[in-house]
């Protein structure tokens, strides 16, 4: 079999075609950089951004202020948000939103109150699909951006603590590409699909949110923080056709005995509500239902995200207003990830990160409607600072350092050569096995016993399964099984990173609840993770406070 490979050079490579990546590419190009915007799915039409409802928090009302916004986020984030990042977010979210409006996005400016405990309602509405439509249009009119759809980035290439390129597998052509560039922006989104029940897989169809960016970064020697902080929230699960539907109003919850049980005042994103729902189910009082049958369909149908799918649901008498809906707890958002500063720099020179893959913006709890401003504000910043970095640092000219690329292509060639025969295991099987471990031991309630079990099982499975990982179909265009097989080793690593961080945080804070350490510790500290000698190494480091400036 002949394996083609081509080599390309650019100033900035953006990995990820969701909101953060699209915004970053646009900005980098505006700052004069030659940009490749690469995504394993169609750019601007994949990832989580188009699936999202559209809440966008910005403190724009007269009685509100950036300071009040920061205080709210810090309180709900349990003090774990880096304050300089929050400050940037509070000050720039409005201008980013106005830019989107300028590009033609329709915004509904009436602020809603998705989080009952925020001091002010400040979520305006810009549906994810609208955001992506206008960004995609702007990108298309930008000469400096090459859209690279179907490019799966499999490894970052680093030399002496500095990125110099990335290895790419072109899913459409079944071909390897070596991209040489002085600056890379990671905008690969979330990792919710490490759990079987995930709002990251609407209708149970994967969006590919398996945390590849965290693994790419860790493998490149980059620092990650608070990987244990995963938002697990109450989400409809049955009927299956509405699983993952997120735009429900909050209503009364009942267990199988008809008892209402959620603490009043908690909203849809509350970790306490999630634990209460999970407890009803694990303690045998499930299934749990949300009862919205006294609310009217019309108010619900006005929700932009409801317009399409729910017409179908209404016809099937399956909207939450026509009958009770079974709910459970499912993964929604990853607060942890790659550590960034205000310029979106990471601890590896030339590597920038923005969006859900980044780690220290939301602390121990992301509030509803606060990811959209994040992807716009930090996407824009990452684009600017990566472009400036590229101006000062030219792309690598010689091929001498290409050995890492060679290692990576060999790894994938071996996968392709493996046929799923005999004792081979399929990537789908392995993915489900990892999800089972995460569901069982690394969910809303954790303890040392469960976490150390998870670690052991993950390591044993990794040793057992990875050598037998088998791909069906070989080197052909858009081989889904191959794409999943390429991602599976990284899923193991990311799961292990989450477990190691959860073990290191011996306290309960926000989304991370430890039954053996139920109290919040006296000082908020990040779990900081580095990947060394095939293992996650975690220590505790201080959270950045503004006063210390």
């Amino acid at each position, binding site marked *: 079999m002949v394996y083609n490979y081509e080599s390309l050079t650019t100033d900035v490579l953006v990995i990820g075609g969701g909101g953060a990546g699209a915004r970053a590419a646009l900005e980098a190009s505006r700052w004069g950089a030659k940009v490749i915007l690469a995504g394993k799915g169609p750019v601007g039409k*994949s990832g989580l951004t188009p699936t999202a409802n559209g809440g966008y928090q910005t403190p724009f009302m007269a009685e509100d202020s950036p300071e009040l916004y920061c205080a709210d986020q810090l309180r709900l984030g349990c003090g774990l948000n880096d304050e300089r990042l929050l400050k940037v977010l509070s000050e720039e979210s409005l201008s980013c939103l106005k830019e989107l409006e300028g590009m033609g996005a329709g915004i509904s400016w009436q602020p809603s109150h998705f989080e009952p405990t925020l001091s002010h309602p400040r979520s305006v509405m810009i549906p994810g699909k609208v955001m992506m439509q206008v960004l995609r249009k702007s990108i298309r009119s930008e000469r400096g951006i090459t859209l690279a759809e179907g490019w799966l980035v499999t490894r970052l290439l680093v030399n002496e603590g500095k990125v110099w390129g990335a290895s790419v597998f072109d899913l459409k052509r079944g071909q390897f590409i070596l991209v040489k560039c002085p600056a890379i922006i990671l905008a690969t989104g979330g990792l919710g699909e490490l759990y079987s029940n995930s709002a990251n897989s609407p209708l149970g*169809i994967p*969006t590919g949110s398996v945390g590849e960016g965290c693994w790419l970064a860790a493998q490149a020697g980059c620092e990650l923080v608070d990987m244990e902080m995963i938002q697990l929230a109450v989400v409809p699960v049955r009927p299956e056709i509405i699983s993952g539907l997120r735009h429900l109003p909050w209503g009364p919850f009942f267990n199988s005995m008809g008892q209402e049980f959620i603490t009043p005042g908690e909203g849809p994103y509350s970790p306490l509500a999630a634990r209460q729902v999970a407890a009803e189910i694990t303690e045998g009082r499930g299934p749990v239902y949300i009862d919205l049958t006294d609310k009217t369909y019309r108010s619900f149908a006005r929700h932009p995200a409801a317009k*399409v*799918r729910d017409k179908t649901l209404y016809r099937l008498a399956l909207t939450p207003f026509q009958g009770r809906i079974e709910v459970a707890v499912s993964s929604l958002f990853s607060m942890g990830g790659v550590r960034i500063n205000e310029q979106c720099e990471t601890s590896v020179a030339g590597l920038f990160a923005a969006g859900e893959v980044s780690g220290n913006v939301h602390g121990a709890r992301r509030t509803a409607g606060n990811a959209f401003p994040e992807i716009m504000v930090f996407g824009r910043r990452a684009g600017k600072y990566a472009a400036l970095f590229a101006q000062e640092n030219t792309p690598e000219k010689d091929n001498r350092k290409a050995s890492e690329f060679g290692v990576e292509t060999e790894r994938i060639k071996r996968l392709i050569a493996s046929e799923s025969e005999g004792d081979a295991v399929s990537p789908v099987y392995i993915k489900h096995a990892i999800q089972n471990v995460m569901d069982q031991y690394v969910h809303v309630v954790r303890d040392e016993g469960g976490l150390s079990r998870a670690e052991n099982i993950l390591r044993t499975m990794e040793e057992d399964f990875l050598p037998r990982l088998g791909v069906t179909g070989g080197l052909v265009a858009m081989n*889904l099984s191959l794409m999943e097989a390429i991602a599976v080793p990284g899923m193991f690593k990311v799961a292990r990173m989450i477990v190691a961080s959860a073990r290191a945080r011996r306290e309960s804070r926000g989304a991370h609840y430890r039954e053996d350490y139920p109290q919040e510790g006296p000082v908020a500290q990040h779990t900081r993770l580095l990947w060394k000698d095939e293992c996650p190494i975690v220590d505790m480091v201080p959270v950045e406070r503004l006063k210390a400036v």
Partner: protein
Amino acid sequence: MKDVDNVTITIYRYTAGLENKPGYETYKVPVKGKMTILQALQYIYEEIDPTLGFRQYCCGVQYCNSCRMLVDGHPVHTCIKVIEKEEYTLEPLKGYEIIKDLIVDWDKKIG
């Protein structure tokens, strides 16, 4: 609307770059409650045939067009198309080069 227990789905198969002739393959999928065509494709990929090509990425809200294909000859968003009968035929959208099975290359219009 009728509930069905099983659905038989006939799918157009073709892989660009391989010397194979386009053809059709038929799969039987159990239907649990209400199910979309896209969910049935995911079932086939996971449980029956991992070589099936379709675009998985799912916005679920008729935006990304990933899931658009011909269902019994008509272009449909399969993420919101609920299975209501016992047989369907799925083919890739017309007017684009086919990459694999139900996946077309949106960058390459033909005809």
